[in-house]
């Protein structure tokens, strides 16, 4: 198994507090992959399982038929007395205890490195992810060198926190904008996005930036505005000129707003139609009159 992949996953699982074990898919005549090592992960809080492996693009066509059948049968073998020792601990991660609920509760997560043109690949990936048998399946299409870079970062510094790194990368608006302008280009952002999109145990903490609510915008606007207003109301339905009442209110917008809102909600409660003249009377007075 590629050491950068192994280091990345080990680090990630360690930080997330998931338990895991590793096994080598052997004793099978049908499957020959470049690496036959699989990491089995269990989320102890929820009880679901994840099966992680690196796969070559050329091997993707094996997934829906031979690979998933072999894997499901091998997982069954691991629960038997004969196979119980074939699952080995993974350095630095708590060893997992396999129970019988894996059969309907395992997601197969396949990591593959992007090489060349990916147009046809996306169809193939969709076919795998939509396949409804044996496992729920996700294929991570990672930019070239993405895992190598992560591996390097992990081995070069003991302080490196991978979850922190992924999180920061996602929150970086500059990287986001670059990514959005060239979505097909290899970038760390694309890789991190794949991690958050496809790994069910990885959760993105969205930093809630206070986007202005409409109410806030109204409030702010009103508070800034201190000009006194006058109001014109048409009292007649036929809109003849001269019938309009021109009233100098000599109040600022905030006062008008408060009284108007009170009036409107009162009318709504009593199920009465809104009446402009009544509103005007209220406005002329001090505050809202019963």
């Amino acid at each position, binding site marked *: 198994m590629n050491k950068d992949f192994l280091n990345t996953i080990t680090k990630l699982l360690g930080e997330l507090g998931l338990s895991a074990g590793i096994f080598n898919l052997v004793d099978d005549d049908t499957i020959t992959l470049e690496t036959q090592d699989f990491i089995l992960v269990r989320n102890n809080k929820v009880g679901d399982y994840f099966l992680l492996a690196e796969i070559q693009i050329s091997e993707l066509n094996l997934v829906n038929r031979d690979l998933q059948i072999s894997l499901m*049968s091998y997982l*069954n073998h691991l629960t038997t007395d004969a196979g119980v020792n074939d699952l080995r601990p993974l350095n630095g991660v708590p060893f997992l205890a396999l129970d019988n609920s894996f059969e309907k509760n395992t997601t197969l997560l396949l990591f593959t490195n992007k090489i060349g043109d990916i147009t046809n690949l996306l169809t193939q990936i969709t076919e795998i992810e939509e396949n409804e048998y044996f496992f729920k399946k996700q294929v991570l299409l990672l930019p070239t060198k993405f895992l190598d870079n992560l591996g390097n970062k992990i081995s070069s510094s003991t302080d490196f926190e991978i979850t922190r790194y992924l999180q920061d990368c996602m929150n970086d608006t500059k990287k986001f904008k670059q990514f959005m302008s060239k979505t097909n280009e290899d970038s760390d952002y694309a890789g991190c996005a794949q991690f958050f999109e496809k790994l069910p145990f990885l959760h993105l903490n969205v930093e809630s930036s206070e986007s202005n609510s409409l109410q806030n915008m109204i409030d702010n606007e009103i508070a800034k505005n201190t000009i006194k207003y006058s109001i014109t109301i048409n009292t007649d339905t036929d809109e003849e000129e001269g019938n309009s009442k021109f009233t100098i209110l000599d109040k600022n917008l905030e006062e008008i707003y408060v009284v108007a809102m009170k009036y409107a909600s009162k009318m709504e409660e009593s199920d009465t139609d809104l009446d402009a003249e009544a509103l005007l009377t209220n406005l002329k007075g001090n505050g809202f009159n019963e």
Partner: protein
Amino acid sequence: MICLAESILQHQNPTPVITPEILTIYVASIKDRIDKYVEQRHEDLRKDETIRLSEIVKRKLTFTEILTCLRTELIDESNDVYWELICRENFENAFQKQIDFLDEENLVERRNLYRQYKTTYDKYIKQGKLSFLLKALKPHISVCDKPSKSNYYHQYIADENDISIAYLSFLENLNIEHDDCFLFPKNGKHFHASTISVNRSNPRHAKNAIDTLKIDFKDRFIYLNKDTDFIVIDSPSNTEFSGRLEKFVEVPNVLDYEVADKEHITSTKDLTFVHYELAQEKLNE
């Protein structure tokens, strides 16, 4: 005959190496020629013509005809005749082995096998359509899925072992008379014979083979008679099992989750795989 064919082939074209495989094909071609000759002789005898006429008129198989077989450019993977010969050779070998395997006392089985052979001969071999039959006996495997035609024929549809353990084992205990040798009707149900074997000594491998088989039947475009209800195969135990694949259920713990498969407009006919012994019992009833 093999030695003779080899020396003639070497004589007329000394450069290429005559591999045992190539030789087998040429011998098969000669055998086919002889077969046709014997058949014509029988035909003549039935018509009483040669008996009355002198020996000169008697139909002969000339050496020239044998030479013609050997002079034909047979080794051509794009030619259907070549593959037909391979199917024929493998089928005959499988048949001979199956007969040899039976004891003198197994008269019924021998008779059944010869009767089925005759049906196969009349309906397929004679018309040069044995490969068509063998394809129908492994309907889930297409030449397009395999790396080469050679792989498709040798490893899959014309595999001697599969023909013998799944197909001929089924036929030898079939006591019924029927005008076809792969689709057998019984009480409104149709049994489709096959050369499929999912019998493995390791139970885990057997289960994998069954799962793979189901996926192949589900995912591939298969030429299958629409009446087919049962596919007769060789499996680890004398049972039948549904061709359905169990779907991955995303949330198994939800209360009141209904797994009952309701009749749906797109639902397809359910195929059942049945062990050949069980199929024999049902058909012989």
